[in-house]
């Protein structure tokens, strides 16, 4: 495991690396606050049940209320993280996930231990010990995470890629000049190509003005890198130009 800024890079025995983006203290704090709200909501339901029980015995009702609050506050994290593979409701909403620090599957003792050590992290007040520990450790781990060998990462959506909509089999005027297309492939780096592709993927979510400006800048960069004759670029908008460049770069 290698830690770079907010990312943990894991290397498998097969020699392949994959990265896990660590969750920051703010997002973890937000998730925790959401979880507290959940526990309070459940506690309110348990309180209603206790008040109904109070019809039979006030003593039993009071005992039930105390135990249910304790069980909910201690057990909520353990049960949800176990059932949802490292996620509580708060973590789920903020797309965070508890993971084994080595990238292996999470075990129940790990989940239980990191939750059992919450009271120590909360010392002396307001999660000061845990918060300071998170800021001091490379993997942003609180004391419970260190003991249980866990990390909290940003969960990724495993959505299948779809490039059909992005790179349709349409006529590409840049391909009419093969030697310049080849030069474009040679000169444009992996990073610049990635930026152009990423811009195309995310263009529908942009403001119209920002979209025009962004594609103008990207198109200007590519035009500066390799200049195509006017007959190949005539009538092409900046966005269409970038699309054609990406088509040249990503489809040989």
């Amino acid at each position, binding site marked *: 495991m290698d830690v770079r800024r907010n990312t943990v890079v894991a290397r498998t025995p097969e020699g392949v690396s994959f990265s896990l983006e660590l969750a920051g203290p703010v997002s973890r704090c937000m998730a925790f606050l959401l979880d507290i709200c959940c526990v309070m909501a459940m506690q309110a339901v348990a309180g209603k049940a206790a008040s109904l029980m109070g019809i039979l015995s006030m003593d039993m009702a009071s005992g039930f209320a105390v135990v249910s609050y*304790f069980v909910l506050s201690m057990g909520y994290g353990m049960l949800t993280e176990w059932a949802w593979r490292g996620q509580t409701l708060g973590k789920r909403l903020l797309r965070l996930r508890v993971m084994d620090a080595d990238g292996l599957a999470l075990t*129940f003792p790990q989940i239980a231990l990191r939750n*059992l050590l919450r009271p120590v992290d909360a010392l002396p007040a307001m999660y000061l010990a845990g918060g300071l520990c998170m800021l001091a450790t490379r993997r942003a781990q609180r004391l419970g995470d260190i003991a249980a060998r866990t990390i909290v990462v940003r969960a990724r959506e495993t959505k299948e890629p779809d490039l059909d909509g992005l790179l349709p089999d349409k006529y590409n005027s840049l391909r009419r000049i093969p030697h310049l297309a080849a030069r474009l492939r040679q000169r444009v780096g992996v990073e610049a190509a990635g930026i152009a592709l990423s811009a195309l993927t995310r263009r529908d979510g942009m403001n119209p003005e920002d979209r025009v400006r962004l594609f103008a800048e990207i198109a200007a960069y590519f035009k500066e890198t390799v200049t195509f004759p006017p007959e190949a670029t005539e009538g092409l908008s900046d966005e269409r130009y970038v699309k054609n460049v990406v088509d040249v770069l990503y489809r040989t």
Partner: protein
Amino acid sequence: MIVDLKRFIKEEQPFWTELEEVLERRVKDPDRTMDIPELRRFHYLYQRASADLSRIATFSSEKNIRMYLEGLVAQAYGEIHEGRGRHWRPKPMRWFLVRFPETFRAHIRAFALAVFVTLLGAVFGAGALGMDEEAREALMPFEHLWGNPGDRVAMEEQSEGEDMAGHHASFASELLTHNIQVSILAMGAGISWGIGTLLILLTNGVILGAVCADYILAGEGVFLAGWLLPHGVVEIPAILIAAQAGLVLAGAVIGSGARENLSARLVRVSGDLVTLAGGMAVMLVWAGIIESFLSQYHAPVLPYSVKIGFGCAELCVLVLFLSKSGEAFYAKAARVIRVPGPVSRLGARLMAARTRRRAGYGR
């Protein structure tokens, strides 16, 4: 420079989808055992996705596909390389009767240290109170214990337990939740290289020693035994077990003389810590119930001899349970796996570890 992304995706996507489906099935039914062809296929798909990730990371900077493949490979990696018996099935009876006492015995030295530190605190507390009775308020943080023990005994015996009427369940629940919280803190404080755990033990010992000395010096030793023994013989060992877990955690953090790194040491003890914490919680539930329903009744309602006798009986059962329970299970399991010849002590421990793994308690 860049692979033909569209063709690459078109060719590889069926394999990624298949791997996704296999992982999905693992999530839905983690206990299902794969047969050999299925395992081979799973491994092949994982390796293929890994190779694809390597290609895409080297030749293209397409972020979405790389992230998608990283997610797939990370999940498959976790499934394939995990060897710790991830799939936990609750077997409460076997866990409590076999695993818990066995874990307790495996870390008996940590328990002995916890007992020693508590006794040290108790001797100090008793000595301090014996030398200076005015130190009572400093040694005992509970206001109801500051008065004269004789007065309290007279008051308790006169009330005949009426002040507890109608409050048993709420009192028991408050006791057990408070005790469990303190015990969890004692365990968790072990991460401070054990310093926090030792301080908690020492403090508890001082209070216990001072209270005992106070009552004995006032000639109320019988009342004290009748009051403390029924719940104390379970409650105090439970807190000591929590401290034992804290010291085990501290041992893993310090790792003096160990060949494993911190990560491996913590992974090794994490299951034991959870087992000890769980066992401790069960014991404290019992102690809370006894304290509320039995300990608060005194003579003449409940003769002290009955309470002391009950406490002693509990202690005997607890000692037997912690020292013997689960041994028969391992002996039987050892016969099943047919261990030849006489078994040495080290051999027996290895055999027990092997049996534990076979029984689904792999650490």
